[in-house]
């Protein structure tokens, strides 16, 4: 997407989905979170333009969109890398050595926490408990969990992604 071009509307496909979403709730505002999730899927992140089209679509003011957007950690106001690496830092993963895994990610990618690689491929974040404590340490990359991480496994995952593999969401312990 050309970063300078202004986004003024949802795609027809997204628009169709929004119409369907709206049928689920007795009021329009309830569709905000689903529509923001959808908007993020469509535009990558929720820029100012996107806030405005979401607001207009749901008869809200942009501030009411913004306050919801900034509350939830999975919604991005700023662009992120093609692969968003969200490594769990909470206790069970920490007990299983997530600090070492974090160090390994940082070293391999050459970036700090919260940063994106220069090629725009990876953004590294630490997150709170991913409900993968029994398969710790765990990371979520674009919706797919990777669990029971070891340094070798991290290497494999990164290599695959660099080769263009799509992260596939799977059941607990299967990735």
């Amino acid at each position: 997407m050309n970063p300078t071009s202004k986004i003024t509307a949802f795609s027809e496909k997204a628009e169709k989905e929004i119409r369907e979403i709206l049928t689920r709730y007795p009021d329009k505002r309830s569709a905000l979170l689903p529509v923001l999730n959808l908007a993020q899927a469509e535009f990558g992140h929720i820029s100012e333009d996107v806030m405005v089209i979401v607001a207009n679509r749901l008869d809200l003011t942009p501030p009411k969109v913004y306050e919801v957007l900034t509350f939830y950690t999975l919604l991005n106001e700023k662009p992120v890398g093609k692969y968003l690496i969200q490594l769990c830092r909470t206790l069970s993963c920490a007990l299983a050595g997530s600090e070492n895994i974090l160090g390994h990610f940082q070293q391999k990618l050459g970036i700090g926490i919260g940063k994106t690689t220069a090629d725009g491929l990876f953004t590294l974040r630490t997150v709170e408990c991913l409900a993968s404590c029994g398969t710790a340490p765990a990371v979520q990359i674009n919706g797919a969990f990777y669990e029971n991480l070891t340094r070798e496994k991290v290497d494999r995952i990164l290599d695959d992604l660099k080769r263009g593999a799509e992260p596939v969401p799977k059941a607990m312990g299967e990735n």
Partner: protein
Amino acid sequence: MKYELVLHKNLKTPGYTGSLTDYERLGGYQAIRKVFKEFTPAQLTDLVKRSNLRGRGGAGFPTGMKWDFLPKDPAITRYLCCNADESEPGTFKDRELIERDPHQMIEGMILAAYAIGAKVGYIYIRGEFVYGARVLERALAEAYHAGYLGKNIFGGRTGIDLYLHIGAGAYICGEETALLESIEGKRGLPRTKPPFPATHGLYGKPTVINNVETLSNLPHIVNRGAEWFASIGSPPKSPGTRIFSVSGHVNRPGNYEVPMGITLRALIDEHAGGVRGNKKIKAIIPGGASAAFLTEGSLDVKLDFEAIAQVGSMLGSGGVTVMDEDTCMVWAALNLMEFFAHETCGKCSPCREGSSWLVQIMRRIEHGHGKMEDLDQLVRICGGIAGKTICAFGDAEVAPILSTLKHWRSEYEYHIKGKKCMVGNRGVKLVAIGGH
């Protein structure tokens, strides 16, 4: 100890995929048929009341009683919400129930909706459960297709629509009123109670919020009777099985469905394979990060609501985290305090300001910049939070610090005086505060 699996029965059956066909083959969706033939909503509520089922989401509130709080006037619209936001550190049982046996939960929701007279139910699933959401979406489509859901079910007696509402990353949305706000398209801020959801819930209407595991129990209670359920586990107050998510320093971390009332020791040794490297246990969190730490002295406590409460902790979400002798308790408490400070919604002053204050002090202590007065200060701050906040988050966030201070105060003092960690492999790096 021999016992029968209930909630895990299907998913532990080899080859079970969680599809509608598989679920039906193993007896699924019989409960709603039975209910349709034999029960009025009031009778179903009564059945659940008699079963003594208690909520599996954290608070352990009796489910039937919760349903009974709703106003009786059938003309008032009411809602059902399934709490599938599972975000309590150390807990991953709902995720497995969702991913592997979605119809069990859906059937439970249909039963609950029928009992409370809800025509619409929402499944609030945490945004990270991308796979789980797909599974549920497929399962819902199957259930609609099979006529278990829709505007015209129970032979035209009612209509029940279930929708998936996907969160976007906020632990607090597991708190039931924050969950409602989130569905309403607002920030997930807990509401001041009263009024309670039973009278003023979603869109101001009477609402029941139940946890995934709680709901998953319902088909079994219907199929096998309240008496059966009330007799298993640790009757009379903690009947039934419980899925414990065991993690940390054990050989076989994972979800284990066991009858309530087995001991922590049995859970850890017999099911989770004991502690890794044959080390000694130092600390156990028995019910998710919100529950107070217990020492190995509590290993023989029964895992039921009352017994755990008696030793000063709670069964909470069933997330059991085991820490071995090499774990630094200051470090562990700080880890969880950072979790809470990150997840506080910020609505009420004690929690918003207190959580980060606690983190700052804990970081100083962990990094060797602590002062002895800090320990009293920690207790004082925790006292200012507990019991004074809008929701139970406030009580939860002080549990790690208060309980570790209670049991391992010397470890804190060692950190302060020695400017280093007491346990071997974790030498304190004297880094600048905030260097995490």
